[in-house]
């Protein structure tokens, strides 16, 4: 069957490539409406303060200003996480909780006037003691950031499976380490942008850079106190998200509220500096980890204690914490596991989901500790992984059901790659440079089951020239899902990719969708598209059967034609068939409908963690070769390989792009990226000082995938590109360990840390 595909598995250019290459693709900040005003947001200069009084009179009197709004102009809605009460107002109601918290917003005839007006808003604050360190925030006497959260704990979880205490007693080897990860940012280049237009019939139209537009659709209705059916959310092209554009933000709300106040369209584009200090980040963590093994390398028990700095608000942090803890159960067989996690409020930027969502932090700790253990026990780090790798058909102690799984194959292949790299290594290299190779493994979800709406839908409309319009509620944030979904539709209908026109999200027309997160789009929306296309095919088969005097079941759709199975000469062009359907008799409107969600999944209880949250898990092994300059402490990742199990790739070129981007992002996470803050003030809110990888950090990459096929995935596909970031960090850190003999337990591994270790300032462990 695999060989017979025309669209699936092919290296096809993405369908939005040309408009992006010509600059014609419009992003939210590129949009204009007649009479449009420009908005700006006033932000708190204090990490923690009461807002006693706001005087907007002077600002309102400035020529060109049309409206100024504050928390007092809102209904007081607070955005919140999944199954938790909200805690985050879009404009401060009584307090500000971090530097950058939104206090007021202005709409004016141009950006300059709006900016000037911000300076005229007088805010009287009463400063409160701030707490910016998560450990200090958990002290009984620490200042409370939210009244409802004693010791500033915004969420806690305690997962326990098996008998951890007895298991440790029976282990031949046990070790404990503390690992730390720094706050990092999503790093999309397009800043948050929103355009809202309210009209007097009570309808709001909204265009914004939202990776999950239906979050905004629902929250906008609540925050404006307007019925949901009066909210229309439209998606322009989106300039990257990586988890940082899921939620509705103050920029979205303020644009809408200001439009409501002024009766004019309002656009707000925040500056990159604001993105960097006033929006989201990846949770920084402190992870105390204990691992126990038998002397043959069999994993027996893991115990973890995690403190995750959640920043000022909950966001979707409950899920983040759950994932951090639950994913100790994957990708290795682990009979006994206990993970206690605390997500703590601090007076800093809120933390949320970011590529790999919570798992990169805990997997970094687990994979590095595993290498330390292997070295101390005299075992091969690859063999130890192979020994413990989950296999198809296994169920993890927390209830993850492993169906398709190519982990063993990926580790075995990685072993061959490493052997080849060692062979290829020049024998008389630069003595001042030490090189090493490290690996890391991962397992990841293909769409997590969450509480609430979880299904994807697809609608396909067929045009009389044989062209096809495909609508889903899922967004392409750059990952290429518009193309992937179109390939699926084209394959089912026997047409070509260029015959499909993909309609981006418009809540008025497209089916409801949870959003683009948790690697759910290809797997879940992909199945909805497949079903919608099959629906179209069935409708057209009836028509074709009549016209070709055959049984509907025998109609084949291929090469933009339909024909009778076994008699290829009894055929007609696809476009002619559509015309016959639409023009004959009463005429048939050919519209296909599909909806899908995996059945039998359990909504995981975030506090106890039990439940199979995904219908498929992807796996993989990441290999990294690093070079440490002993003079400068500079680390360079010289090449990487990834062997991964994503089922049947729908588009290998796009899949490679996902993996490469994820891997280089991981290089930044491991070596250079860190938000530096002093008393809650971000010190590096610019791309110059916050160092993301550039072309100079790109390295050679070898990409392989295992021969797996997922029975539930569309054409056998599952997650690709998100999970791999989980394994990149430990692969690099383990590579450094191999090169220098020092296992670093904090990321990023900076030059200073390397030099310190080389000079023996840091005790050389192991």
């Amino acid at each position, binding site marked *: 069957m695999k060989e017979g595909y025309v669209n699936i598995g092919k*290296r096809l*250019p*993405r369908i*939005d*490539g*040309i*408009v*992006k*290459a*010509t*600059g*014609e*693709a*419009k*992003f939210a*900040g*590129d949009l204009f409406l007649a009479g449009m005003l420009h908005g700006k947001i006033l932000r708190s200069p204090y990490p923690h303060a009461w807002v006693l009084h706001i005087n907007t009179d002077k600002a309102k009197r400035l020529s060109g200003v049309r409206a100024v709004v504050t928390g007092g102009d809102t209904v007081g809605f607070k955005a919140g996480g999944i199954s938790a009460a909200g805690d985050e107002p879009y404009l401060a109601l009584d307090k500000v909780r971090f530097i950058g918290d939104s206090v007021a917003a202005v709409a004016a005839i141009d950006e300059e006037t709006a900016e000037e007006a911000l300076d005229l808003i007088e805010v009287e604050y009463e400063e409160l003691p701030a707490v910016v360190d998560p450990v200090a925030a958990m002290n009984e006497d620490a200042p409370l950031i939210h009244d409802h959260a004693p010791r500033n704990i915004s969420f806690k979880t305690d997962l326990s499976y098996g008998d951890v205490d007895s298991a440790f007693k029976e282990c031949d080897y046990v070790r404990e380490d503390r690992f730390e990860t720094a706050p990092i940012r*999503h*790093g*999309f*280049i*397009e*800043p948050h942008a929103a355009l809202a237009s309210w009209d007097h019939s009570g309808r709001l139209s909204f265009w914004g850079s939202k990776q999950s537009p239906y979050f905004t659709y629902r929250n906008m209705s609540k925050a404006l106190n307007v019925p949901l059916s009066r909210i229309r959310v439209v998606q322009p*092209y*989106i*300039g*990257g998200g*990586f988890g940082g554009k899921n939620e509705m933000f103050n920029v979205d709300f303020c644009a809408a509220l200001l439009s409501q106040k002024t009766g004019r369209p309002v656009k707000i*584009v925040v*500056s*990159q*500096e604001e993105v960097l200090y006033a929006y989201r980040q990846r949770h920084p963590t402190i992870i105390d980890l204990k691992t126990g093994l038998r002397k043959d390398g069999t994993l027996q028990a893991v115990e973890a204690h995690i403190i995750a700095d959640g920043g000022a608000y909950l966001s979707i942090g409950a899920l983040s914490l759950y994932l951090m803890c639950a994913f100790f159960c994957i990708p290795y067989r682990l009979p006994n596991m206990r993970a206690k996690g605390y997500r703590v409020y601090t007076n800093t930027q809120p933390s949320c989901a970011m590529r790999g969502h919570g798992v990169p932090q805990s997997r970094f700790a687990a994979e590095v500790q595993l290498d330390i253990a292997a070295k101390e026990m005299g075992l091969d780090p690859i063999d130890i992984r192979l020994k413990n790798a989950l296999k198809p058909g296994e169920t993890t102690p927390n209830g993850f059901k492993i169906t398709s799984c190519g982990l063993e194959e990926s580790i075995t292949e990685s072993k061959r790659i490493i052997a080849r790299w060692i062979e290829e290594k020049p024998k008389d290299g630069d003595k001042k440079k030490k090189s090493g190779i490290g690996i890391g493994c991962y397992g990841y979800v293909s769409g997590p089951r969450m509480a609430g709406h979880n299904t994807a839908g697809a609608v396909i409309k067929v045009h009389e020239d044989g062209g096809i319009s495909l609508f889903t509620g899922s967004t392409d*944030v*750059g*990952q*290429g899902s518009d193309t992937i979904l179109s390939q699926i539709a084209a394959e089912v209908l026997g047409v070509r990719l260029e015959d499909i026109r993909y309609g981006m999200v418009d809540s008025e027309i497209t089916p409801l969708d949870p959003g683009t997160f948790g690697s759910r789009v290809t797997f879940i929306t992909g199945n909805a598209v497949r079903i919608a296309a099959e629906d179209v095919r069935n409708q057209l088969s009836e028509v074709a059967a009549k016209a070709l005097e055959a049984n509907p079941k025998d109609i084949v759709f291929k090469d933009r034609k339909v024909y009778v199975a076994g008699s290829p000469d009894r055929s007609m062009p696809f476009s002619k068939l559509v015309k016959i359907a639409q023009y004959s008799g009463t005429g048939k409107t050919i519209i296909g409908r599909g909806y899908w969600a995996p059945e039998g999944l359990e909504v995981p209880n975030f506090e106890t963690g039990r439940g199979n949250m995904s219908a498929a898990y992807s796996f993989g092994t990441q290999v990294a070769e690093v070079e440490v300059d002993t003079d400068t402490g500079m680390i360079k990742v010289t090449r990487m390989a990834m062997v991964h199990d994503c089922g049947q790739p729908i588009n290998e*070129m*796009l899949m*490679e*792009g996902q993996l*490469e*981007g*994820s*891997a*280089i*992002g991981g290089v930044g996470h491991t070596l250079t990226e860190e938000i530096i803050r002093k008393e809650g003030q971000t010190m590096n809110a*610019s*791309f*110059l000082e916050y160092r*993301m*990888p*550039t*072309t*100079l*950090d*790109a390295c050679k*990459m070898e990409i392989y995938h295992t021969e797996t096929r997922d029975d539930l995935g569309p054409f056998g596909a599952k997650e690709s590109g998100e999970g791999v970031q989980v394994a990149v960090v430990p692969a690099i850190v383990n590579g450094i360990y191999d090169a220098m003999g020092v296992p670093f337990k904090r990321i990023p591994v900076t030059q200073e840390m390397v030099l310190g270790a080389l000079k023996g300032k840091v005790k050389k462990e192991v």
Partner: protein
Amino acid sequence: MKKQIKLKVNGVDYDVLIKPHWTLLDVLRDEIGLMGTKKGCDKGECGACTVIMNGEAVLSCLLLAIQCQGKDILTIEGLSQNGKLDPLQDAFVKYGAIQCGFCTPGMIMASRALLNKTPHPSEEEIKRGLSGNLCRCTGYVKIIAAVQKASTTEGRR
């Protein structure tokens, strides 16, 4: 307070009314309506606003529009000729060098300036030439490959 200036963009002369402190980027986008040039950081740190001025890749957010009078300015919109994509645009599409597309116009303009000066750059030269253009999606691997491919096909144009 506004001043009338002449700008030559993509071969067309524009008379625009500007304030003296407006950047070329803002004038291109808001006054002339060429939205292909992107505003990523507005500080010269991300490269998304790269355009070509008198053959050099420049950051339009760091130039005042008033400085650009009498210069030949080329933006992403002026790159395709007679409805045919520039070989770089073509290679970016064909070889998967585009994901979200926000950095793409700047990346292509920086690549264009590079190839104009160095028609057959080495991998190292491409990396150096594009090191001022940030991309979070691709990991740069396919961007570098696309520039290489374009440089080998261009002679046959």
